[in-house]
């Protein structure tokens, strides 16, 4: 049986919690009503509603946009796999030590500097229009593949930096222990360093994955008929902006599970670090 003090304390805490919830609910409601009133009472609202939120054109555009989104998802999956492999490879090259590896390190660093600095849209144009322009045999001319190459080039640079941060966060004593039992540098990286690094960088990796998800829509600038391109076509057909809103909402729906997954991964990590 708990003491009277403890029961009083619990009762007080419960009353505070109830008050906080009440304030939160009220303030949210007030804000939502005010925002709704401000938007719907604006002079342009009727026009905006008919061009951006037209149910008829939304329903008409949906099948084509969904078909386009399926292309985005396939591009996403293939690119993500390539990005993880290439990014990890570049990160491993950047962490090599010793003068022998200087050229390799310098190349990897130059790659990261170049593709992290280059705007994705410019990379898309250069790869999408420049590469086929060379008219080399074997160079693909499919805008989906070219767009995918551009995405992989840019995102590998970002992901390489995430991996590198993870690799360098593994304490030197782990390397000392790994070498002391006779592991080679490569074995140490594969068995001891990289597995620990990946656990630590899972949340930022998932964050980059969510960013890639929407940037997949940019392959439309090369003419690939993805969700964004399908929305553009439907928009011209129905003469409203509604298909863009539909495509935008679908991208958000796609991102939500990944964002929650990233949150959960971050929470799990925080709990484990706390327990250790």
């Amino acid at each position: 049986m708990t003491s009277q003090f403890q029961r009083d304390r619990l009762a007080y805490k419960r009353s505070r919690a109830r008050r906080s919830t009440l304030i939160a609910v009220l303030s949210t409601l007030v804000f939502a009503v005010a925002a709704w009133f401000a938007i719907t009472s604006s002079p342009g609202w009727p026009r905006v509603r008919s061009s951006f939120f037209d149910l008829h054109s939304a329903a008409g555009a949906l099948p084509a946009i969904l078909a386009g989104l399926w292309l985005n998802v396939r591009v996403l999956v293939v690119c993500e796999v390539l990005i993880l492999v290439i990014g990890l490879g570049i990160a491993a090259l950047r962490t090599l030590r010793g003068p022998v590896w200087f050229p390799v390190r310098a190349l990897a660093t130059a790659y990261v500097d170049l593709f992290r600095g280059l705007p994705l849209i410019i990379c898309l144009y250069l790869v999408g229009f420049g590469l086929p322009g060379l008219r080399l045999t074997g160079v693909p001319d499919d805008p989906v593949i070219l767009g995918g190459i551009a995405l992989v080039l840019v995102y590998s640079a970002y992901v390489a930096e995430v991996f590198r941060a993870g690799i360098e966060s593994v304490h030197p004593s782990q390397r000392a222990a790994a070498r002391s039992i006779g592991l080679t540098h490569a074995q140490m990286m594969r068995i001891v360093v990289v597995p620990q690094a990946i656990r630590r960088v899972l949340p930022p990796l998932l964050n980059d994955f969510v960013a890639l998800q929407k940037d997949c829509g940019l392959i439309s600038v090369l003419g690939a008929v993805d969700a964004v391109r399908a929305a553009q076509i439907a928009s011209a057909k129905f003469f409203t902006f509604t298909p863009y809103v539909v495509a935008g909402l679908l991208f958000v729906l796609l991102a939500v599970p990944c964002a929650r997954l990233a949150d959960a991964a971050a929470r799990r990590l925080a709990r484990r670090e706390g327990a250790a």
Partner: protein
Amino acid sequence: MTAILAVSGLVKRYGEHTVLDGVDMEVGEHEVMVLIGASGSGKSTLLRCVNLQEELDDGQILLDGEDISDPRVNADLVRRRMGVVFQAFNLFPHLSVVDNVTLAPRVVHGVDKVAATERGMALLARVGLADKASSYPDRLSGGQQQRVAIVRALAYEPRLLLLDEITSALDPELVGDVLTLVRELAEQGTTILMATHEMGFARQVADRVCFLDGGVLVESGPPEQVLTRPSQDRTRQFLRRVIAAGRLN
């Protein structure tokens, strides 16, 4: 007695600071050599040099008569012949206890998984940790982690065991278990080179004691001589400080 390890004229500098200033030392087969000295006297650096984790600035290290300080020697192959136990355990946190222990036999020495696990389990049972085989290191106490670390270093039957202040990070009541294990290893003839602050333990278990001060090996000999009748002033001063701190019993 054949020397497993022979160090001569070993010099190690960090920038301007000379950590080891011409150390000569030999460890014979089945011998337990204990390094004593204040923090910063060079004990740990000496162990790291022997394990080829540091580049030497001068001198020579022979392991079983082979010059392992020669840069043409493959350091990975040399390290396979030594086991190291660290002050902070340095277990691999993402691997279970038994995987920590069997990693080197499997990956480095090509022992198949079944045989490596069998031997790993036998070693864990010997240190009373068989029931922890599938646990992760974070779930173990410091003393348990250090016993696992010792087993990890023994799992591939090294010629020489290097122990670097292995009880310094442990709570006082956990030190005993770890030292008992080291004593058993010594009695079974394991060749050990250890740095420690446990003077009582050094006196009981060491075959020889080396006193290091400022990177110089001031004196060495049987423990009863170095610890009770030291010939050098610096050794006497060090021991007086140790006694004043209540560490010699």
